[in-house]
């Protein structure tokens, strides 16, 4: 009995933390390369994208910062990943000191239903994230000409 409990405990310890468990290894590696292993916190940025996408060829996406952090922690860059696209990178955006509100909007392609992840890097070395799980009914990328 005791041995069984030990095994169960070891299995629990071996599980990655909840935030990393959902992320595909390729994307997790890209995010780790970005943060250098610093913790990702929920908040500061908001990823706006429709939850139900009818056409994956052009999906409106925007990232906003509801409350601008103080100057010392200003947002330097925002990185967006689409977990199940052939190439999960979507866009990396960098904001200079003369930038207004950090954030952007654009139109993207989505290969299939998946989780989108946005990561913001702040000047104080902290990293913030937001993610959205969405459904795509007509996929992009793989259509014939």
């Amino acid at each position, binding site marked *: 009995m005791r041995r069984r409990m030990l095994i169960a405990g070891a299995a629990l310890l071996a599980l990655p933390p909840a935030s990393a468990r959902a992320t595909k290894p390729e994307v997790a590696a890209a995010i780790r390369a970005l943060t250098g292993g610093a913790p990702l916190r929920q908040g500061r940025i908001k990823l706006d994208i429709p939850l139900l996408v009818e056409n994956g060829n052009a999906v409106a996406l*925007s990232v906003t910062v509801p409350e601008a952090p103080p100057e010392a922690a200003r947002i330097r860059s925002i990185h967006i990943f689409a977990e199940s696209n*052939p190439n999960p990178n*979507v866009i990396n*955006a960098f904001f200079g000191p003369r*930038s*207004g509100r950090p954030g952007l909007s*654009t*139109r993207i*392609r989505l290969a299939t239903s998946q989780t989108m992840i946005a990561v913001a890097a702040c000047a104080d070395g902290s990293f913030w994230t937001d993610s959205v799980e969405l459904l795509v009914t007509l996929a992009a*990328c793989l259509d014939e000409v």
Partner: protein
Amino acid sequence: MARPLVSIPKSVRRGDIFDIRILIAHPMESGQRRDDSGRAIPREIINRFICTYGGEEVFRAEFFPAIAANPFLTFSVRAVETGMIVMTWTDDLGASQFESAEIIVT
């Protein structure tokens, strides 16, 4: 190449934040598609975009094939002084294009 559609205000008050919107005509060939005979169509996308204001970089982006054809981008800038806003982008073939406008700060 066709000229892009750009929206930049003509004049703004000092300290105000204004939006820049740009729509560039470009197929953004993702490299994932095949032609009728099954050959892969090579990737050819705009991969870099930079916006400067009075010579200083305000916004820069790296695009990947997930950016839809005819890329559309919105970002914002803080009005500091009257000056030129210059946006430059480069595609996989190394071809560069730019668009500029003067903004008057009152």
